[in-house]
């Protein structure tokens, strides 16, 4: 990593590039762009259908959404601990923290799946109304990114367990971590936007 400002007096250095492989940051920005457009589209679509959106929103399980937010934030926290661990060369600890993050990701998927099951079995589909179209599209799209994030973390975890990372060389861990934080970050906006604000 290129260090821009190496000031021994200051507690930290400034890096030229964000953590992990720069390539993943291209994807992160592209994802932010795609979801950002969707979020804005939701808000403006709602503006034309306020009564419909407010009414349909009442049928969502806000509790599930909130718990899921807590779950993802916690799994992000675990990933931060994992990166801290490998920075000190503790591969096994790193792998365990990532395992915990994946576990919480699985909890997120489970809770979300229950929510979907509930909706689908009452006959709600993408074509039911504009609110449900957005709700299902956004959360399913996000769901797929959670899965992808978990796969990336799993690959990192396996490599960490085999001793593939060290204190000097752990770009892969930071790469996977950055992607996972993005997944969390998107949900942090999605939850209030779709479940709460009316």
């Amino acid at each position, binding site marked *: 990593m290129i260090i821009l400002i190496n000031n021994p007096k200051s507690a930290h250095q400034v890096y030229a590039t964000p953590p992990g492989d720069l*390539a993943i940051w*291209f994807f992160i920005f592209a994802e932010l762009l*795609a979801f950002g457009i*969707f979020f804005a589209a939701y808000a403006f679509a709602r503006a034309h259908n306020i009564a419909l959106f407010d009414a349909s929103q009442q049928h969502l399980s806000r509790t599930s959404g909130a718990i899921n937010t807590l779950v993802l934030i916690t799994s992000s926290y675990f990933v931060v601990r994992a990166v801290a661990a490998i920075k000190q060369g503790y591969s096994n600890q790193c792998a365990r923290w990532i395992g915990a993050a994946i576990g919480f990701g699985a909890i997120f998927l489970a809770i979300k799946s229950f929510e979907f099951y509930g909706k689908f079995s009452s006959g709600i589909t993408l*074509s039911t109304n504009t609110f449900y*179209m957005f709700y299902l*599209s956004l959360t399913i799209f996000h769901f797929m990114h959670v899965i992808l994030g978990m796969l990336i973390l799993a690959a990192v975890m396996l490599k960490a367990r085999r001793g593939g990372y060290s204190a000097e060389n752990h770009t892969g861990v930071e790469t996977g971590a950055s992607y996972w934080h993005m997944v969390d970050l998107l949900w942090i906006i999605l939850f209030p936007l779709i479940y709460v604000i009316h």
Partner: protein
Amino acid sequence: MQYKSQAVAKPYFIAAIGLFLGQILFGLIMGYQYVVGDFLFPAIPFNVARMVHTNLLIVWILFGFMGSAYYLIPEEAETELFSPKLAWLMFWVFLVAGALTIVGYLTVPYATLASMTGNDILATMGREFLEQPLPTKVGIVIVALVFLFNISMTVLKGRKTSISLVLLLGLWGLAIFFLFSFYNPSNLVLDKYFWWWTVHLWVEGVWELILGAMLAFVLIKITGVDREVIEKWLYIIIAMTLITGIIGTGHHYFWIGTPEYWQWFGSVFSALEPIPFFMMTVFAFNMVNRRRREHPNKAATLWALGTGVMSFLGAGVWGFLHTLAPVNFYTHGTQITAAHGHMAFYGAYVMVNLTMISYAMPMLRGRSANSRSSQVMEMWAFWLMTISIVCITLFLTAAGILQIWLQRMGTSPMSFMDAQDQIRIFYWAREFSGLVFLVGLVLYIWSFFFKNSEAQAAE
């Protein structure tokens, strides 16, 4: 050239340029028919000229792709082509089948052609760009499969690089999605839905992978920049292509009777489709700026950079202009579509083929670049063709905007034919630009013969 079997690329390139010339001649015929409606009627009616123009475009581009693959795969895989004989055989099969098809379009009424060629066994004819008779379509599949077998075996027995793998993925995808041209549901909505699985997923999907791989190959050769740098860019570019382009298919599902959510999905994802083209442009300029050698083939460098810019403008920008559903509601099926289509096809697939031919033909003839005067002529051809396409696009865009204003907006919209009358001036201007394009193309062809016999470009 490093491997003897790369020589099979030559006939493919020559056929490509020959068919390109034919395509442009029929384009000029149509352009004239836009303003003098019964030109060549009934010998070559407009719809027949159109079939010939569009089918020739696709076939010559395919010849170009295949020639490019036969050239670059042995060099990337560091081994001779699996079977040069098969490559030659398929060349003749494809050329003859293509020629017969064109002759069929021109000499036989389409309905008769259909009954003559077994369209009652499996009906695959009658759809835009997929007008080929059943035997031709089957022939294309056979040629494609043998071609794929040939280059896949070559890669399997040699070195596997990102460029060859991306190219293979694109070419296999091309073949697989062509199979959808055989699927012809009677339900009109489904018919249109799956038609795009060939057309969109070709030009806004797997063809972009082919484009990326070809461009990356030429850039590595010309600039000498580290392979790893170029390969990483290539992966990011094709990932963005697939991520935006697959669901981006939805921008063709706005008005054909599919559910309303496609208007959202199609708009959002296709709006992002310019991103990979933007990246390719940045990638190309970046590589040339960071070059480690002064390659004598300046013309090929110009084509490579031009491909990035023109594909971004034609496919990316012009595509974006009419991709959002609320806009497309008004622009669908107007001259705006034609404007985008011409600059996109030229900027992306015509130019990448010309880039490759520009780089590879001298090599195939035993030199690293053509003579200086020949390259100057080729670069003139580049500018004439490129600027005239830009003019064609601008004129058709203006025509489209006026057409929409007159025919689709306001309190008393005009009829289609009345609106067409009002935009004739743009059609004349377009035809004139098309003539300039032809001049450019002729110069391009001439540059291969011009002052190259004596001159050997210094390394």
